[in-house]
């Protein structure tokens, strides 16, 4: 393969020791439009629209999505989660990880190209940069030029937009954890709590740094997914690939030269008709002498991570498909068929059939469905109340006024949205349940309720008895928790 001139991304200079210190040079990606870039813009609008809009949405008179950390309760539309429901959050994270595996096996780094917050926010920051500093060539010139009035104005405008947008992002972030409407009012009053202000700046700063400056370096040096995603790839995974066979040998040509496939047909037909070499009759280079890549380098210029896709699949590639759109636009201009750079599988590139249904996708898919089913079932079947029974640790029993008595502590958790009163009883023994206080809870409360079971001496046999506490709510929920009752008997 011919060596291609590509923009130098890194400048290697000598460190004090023998090691290499690599300074980063900013990548100015050229703007490109096309099918996939339209899709990506759509993804940016949908995802960021959701992010900035969701906290302002109300549901039954309360912020629809509120991870209310000060109150220790999460509201997601009609559902309320308490710290006891942490299991569901953990399960949700596992589901999210598994869907990442599933979609990666299916279609490669879809996540990176379209949905990752790093990509999405970088898109917006690059858009602002373009707004303030112009197109790629203008930006390169501006960066290289002296600090004159124009440069100062343009840079100030860019950073002004970045900082405002980053602060708004930070504010929205905190608005997921503390009610955003009152947060907004307190912001207007300059009356934010110190920690709220801190987190707004912290998240704003992270957004500003990651999307404004670090950009593709986050993907290359910080993202664990970029490192292990190749483990989920196989030869049936959709990747962005350059069709080497069709494209090489690359080179400039007159516009009138047809594509390889057309030239192959032309040359073949001439060879049949004449015995003379085809080149003499046709004014085109033969198909094996010139591939379809016109070597315009546009695919390199549009790449936000600064790689050359023609060198093959590289771990830096975030699958944003900018090179596909760039190449397609050139192919259109040349009158060549699209798809010299395209979404395809390794099998597809080697002209072998690709399979979507294969053990890897089936296993990931089945696991994903099972976990999602379990999550939905778990959340819908959630009891609004839970009870734990703790036996008194000090004594098995005590004898008080001809009664034998066992002491327990009931932990009653109200996981619903309304206050509750409970009826308690005991099963499995002929004894009296003495409840010290009223069994009632506020929403979200965990009530520690000391109770005693009293039985007349001699009315119960000595030794241990299996008993069960029964808790009934006013709306008909019934919870049974097993425990043990001990009485003095044969052993005495």
């Amino acid at each position, binding site marked *: 393969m011919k060596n291609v001139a590509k923009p130098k991304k890194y400048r290697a200079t000598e460190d004090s020791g023998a090691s290499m210190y690599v300074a980063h040079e900013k990548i100015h990606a050229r703007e490109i439009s096309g099918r996939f870039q339209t899709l990506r813009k759509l993804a940016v609008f949908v995802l960021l629209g959701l992010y900035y809009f969701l906290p302002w949405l109300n549901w039954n008179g309360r912020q629809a999505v509120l991870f209310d950390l000060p109150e220790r309760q999460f509201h997601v539309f009609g559902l309320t989660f308490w710290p006891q429901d942490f299991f569901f959050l953990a399960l949700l994270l596992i589901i999210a990880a598994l869907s990442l595996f599933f979609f990666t096996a299916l279609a490669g780094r879809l996540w990176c190209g379209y949905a990752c917050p790093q990509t999405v926010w970088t898109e917006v920051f690059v858009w602002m940069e373009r707004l303030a500093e112009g197109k790629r060539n203008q930006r390169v010139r501006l960066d290289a030029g002296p600090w004159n009035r124009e440069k100062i104005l343009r840079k100030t405008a860019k950073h002004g937009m970045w900082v405002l947008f980053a602060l708004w992002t930070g504010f929205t972030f905190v608005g997921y954890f*503390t009610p955003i409407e009152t947060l907004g009012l307190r912001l207007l009053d300059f009356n934010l709590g110190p920690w709220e202000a801190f987190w707004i700046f912290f998240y704003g700063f992270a957004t500003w740094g990651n999307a404004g400056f670090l950009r593709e370096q986050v993907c290359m040096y910080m993202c664990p997914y970029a490192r292990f995603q190749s483990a989920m790839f196989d030869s049936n995974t959709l990747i962005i690939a350059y069709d080497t066979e069709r494209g090489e040998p690359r080179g400039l040509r007159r516009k009138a030269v047809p594509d390889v496939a057309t030239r192959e047909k032309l040359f073949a037909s001439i060879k049949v008709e004449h015995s003379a070499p085809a080149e003499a009759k046709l004014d085109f280079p033969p198909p094996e002498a010139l591939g379809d890549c016109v070597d315009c380098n546009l695919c390199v210029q549009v790449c936000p991570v600064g790689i050359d896709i023609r060198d093959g699949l590289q771990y830096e590639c975030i699958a944003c498909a900018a090179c596909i759109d760039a190449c397609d636009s050139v192919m259109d201009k040349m009158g060549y068929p699209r798809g010299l750079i395209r979404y395809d599988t390794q099998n597809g590139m080697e002209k072998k059939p690709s399979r979507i249904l294969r053990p890897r996708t089936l296993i990931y898919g089945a696991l994903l469905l099972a976990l999602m089913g379990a999550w939905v079932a778990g959340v819908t079947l959630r009891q609004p109340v839970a009870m734990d029974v703790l036996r008194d640790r000090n004594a098995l029993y005590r004898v008080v006024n001809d009664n034998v008595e066992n002491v327990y502590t009931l932990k009653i958790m109200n996981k619903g949205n309304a206050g509750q009163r409970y009826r308690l009883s005991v099963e499995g023994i002929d004894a009296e349940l003495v409840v010290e206080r009223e069994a009632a809870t506020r929403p979200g409360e965990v009530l520690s309720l000391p109770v005693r079971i009293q039985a007349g001496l001699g009315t119960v046999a000595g030794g241990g008895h299996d008993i069960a506490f029964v808790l009934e709510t006013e709306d008909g929920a019934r919870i049974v928790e097993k425990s043990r009752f001990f009485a003095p008997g044969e052993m005495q």
Partner: protein
Amino acid sequence: MPGRGDPSVSSRTLRVVIIAWASFAVASIATAFFFAAFDPVALAEAATFPVRLGRTAGYTLGFFCFWLIALSASAFSVFLIRSMEQSAHRPQ
């Protein structure tokens, strides 16, 4: 496959950033698990010295404690690995 322009891990800035970032990620997860189980207000009440702490302040403090712990472990590991590699490369 190795990317071109791969930086050597000996770049100091990169080392610091990676240590800070990895420990940040771990601290975030640890904070979520820890405070799902324990209420910072209850913890402050159970402290052996008088502490007045709101929940938001408690979470923040907890997060930074976790970050500091993870940061120390992360930095210590890198220091040990680095010094091991350096002594291995030293000419005899």
